[in-house]
């Protein structure tokens, strides 16, 4: 943002202070993530920038921690990744279907007590996870689903649906209902109308909700800590256990993989958002 020539000096100073402050805040937000990347390629066993690394000596870098992550004998990452993916997959499907259907109802102008229902359906996102975890643990223990994949998947569906409800209702706010009426007048039944007309139009919202639900489940540690047995360990649980013992370079390697994954998810979410805005004809 270049300033015009006639700008007064005090305003000029103020303007650059403001830009510097903003720059520092952006740095504060993003820099911590980039500390992890180089450390995961450390040749030494410590979480510290060694002299060789700082001198950019190739000997200071290695892939040994990635090797350890994949082939390490005692490492539980294989099982954890498998479990995390299975749980997140089914939790995403469950949350997306339940959340989308509920959002369709909530967006209807005939829905009674809309605000109250919305507040209830969003509440799992607001209530502290420790409370959700405690309550769900008591319940799952009572019905015999503690330490099972099913129990964890069900609780992750609960935690994921608010995101789907929010994103899909947001997509539906700009939705032109005359297109569904047109379909109906042309003789289409409601299911067919939904599959052929409504769903393709709200698809960006559904997918971005699904991404949120996936990330929520894939990251979730508190509820799993209560529910998981040894067989149900997930990536976040293994990271939690590892971080409580000591910072190991292998954890840095896992963290790097997760950062790469979240970058990919961010890019797809961003593309979807733009597509959705284009489809709904919102120009910002």
């Amino acid at each position, binding site marked *: 943002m270049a300033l015009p020539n006639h700008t007064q000096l005090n305003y000029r100073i103020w303007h650059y202070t403001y*830009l510097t402050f903003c720059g520092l805040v952006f740095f504060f*937000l993003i820099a911590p993530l980039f500390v992890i990347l180089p450390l995961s390629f450390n040749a030494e066993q410590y979480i510290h920038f060694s002299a060789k690394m700082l001198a950019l000596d190739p000997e200071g870098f290695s892939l040994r921690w990635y090797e350890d992550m994949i082939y390490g004998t005692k490492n539980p990452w294989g099982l954890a990744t498998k479990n995390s993916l299975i749980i997140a997959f089914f939790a995403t499907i469950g949350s997306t279907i339940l959340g989308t259907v509920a959002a*369709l109802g909530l967006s209807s102008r005939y829905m009674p007590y809309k605000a109250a229902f919305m507040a209830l359906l969003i509440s799992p996102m607001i209530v*502290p996870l420790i409370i959700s975890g405690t309550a769900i643990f008591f319940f799952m223990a009572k019905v015999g689903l503690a330490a099972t994949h099913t129990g964890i998947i069900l609780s992750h569906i609960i935690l994921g649906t608010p995101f789907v409800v929010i994103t899909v209702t947001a997509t539906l706010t700009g939705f032109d209902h005359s297109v569904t009426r047109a379909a109906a007048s042309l003789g289409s039944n409601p299911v067919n109308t939904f599959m052929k007309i409504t769903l393709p139009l709200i698809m960006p919202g559904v997918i971005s909700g699904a991404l949120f639900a996936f990330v929520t489940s894939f990251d979730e540690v508190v509820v799993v800590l209560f529910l998981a047995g040894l067989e149900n360990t997930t990536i976040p649980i293994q990271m939690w256990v590892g971080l409580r013992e000591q910072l190991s370079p292998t954890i840095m390697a896992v963290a790097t993989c997760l950062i790469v994954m979240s970058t990919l998810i961010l890019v797809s979410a961003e593309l979807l958002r733009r597509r959705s805005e284009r489809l709904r004809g919102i120009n910002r």
Partner: protein
Amino acid sequence: MSKEQILSSDGLPLEVSLKKAERKNKLKAVLLVAPLFLFILIIYVFPIGDMLFRSIDDRMITNMLPKTFKAMEKWDGSELPDEPVYQGLYEDLTFLKENKTYGKIIARLNYEKSGFSSLIKKTVRKINKFEEGNYKEQFIKVHKRWGQSDYLVALKNAAPKWTYAKYLKGMDRKFDQDRNIIQVDEDRRIHKILWLRTLNVAFWVTVFCFILAYPISHLLATLPMKYSNLLMICVLLPFWTSLLVRTSSWMVLLQQQGPINDLIVWIGLAADDNRPELMYNVIGTFVAMTQILLPFMVLPLYSVMKTISPSLMRAGKSLGGTPLVSFVKIYFPLTIPGIGAGCLLVFILAIGYYITPALVGGASGSLISNTIAYHMKSSLDWAFASALGTMLLVGVLTIYWIYNKLVGIDNIKLG
């Protein structure tokens, strides 16, 4: 107005026909919401209700000493009870010994009054040698505490099925002998400190987030699209990244041999052998939580600022306002909805934070959630964990209610 009724094609009055169609649409909407509603009701709302129930449930001991408590109903506690109470106690304890379940009541009674542990153990050991009749004398012979009315009063105090003693414990209070509520000893008042610390951390994290988020949201909202999209990545990437990854990066940064400490030593603020402790205390909790929750403040602020037309500020200036006056009188009031949404969201999330304080907070930086987890997983006092959880829940739901009134939950923005 004509009196003639307008009829729809199926011969019904239009009004009736319209009502019918509306009722059908209403039913359709409700049916669409029903599956998720029922799912959340069964797996979420019902369990939380069960948790509240658990925090006041004291039926275990009531069910284990039924005859004793029945006989005690008529006793007013002023002097030693009569024979029937002791007979009831004899029968209950004999039954518990046969089933080997008396261990459970020891912990519960010892909580009511210390000294019960040895009393019950000794009595149970000798109870087989009791002869029929005159139980009172035999009990006192086994242990003289059975002849002290304060132990029997404590026993009677454990009789009710429901108790709010766990809530008192959460507020550093307890019942004394005569069921008065008193504060616990000075050195055991830990929960008050925890509650205050939790509120304190949540408050300051919200303030820091606001101070950091306001300028950058403004910048993001006013920059041309191609730059702001790029900078938005700085906000969204942490938002999408795993909480544990972000916490571990703070553990790397804040450790004693970490980059931040290196920098402090290099600048000369501290000696190399006297590096400051940045982690495992409340500083670590503050810094890490501020960075982690910052996107939740930026996104609502940004979405509000985006809607404010830049011509308003220009109008203010053209009417003679200095930039500062125009900002205070025009821009700031327009952003208040965003400020409310962001602050409430960050405060709600911060007050229940668990993972980050547990990893970087140490003992002096741990919050109420960590205590709940401790009682769930280590001390196994589930009733107390439930009581603390309920107290936290009431607080959070109050703020949630305010949020809903002020902002409207359907206005929540994600990304």
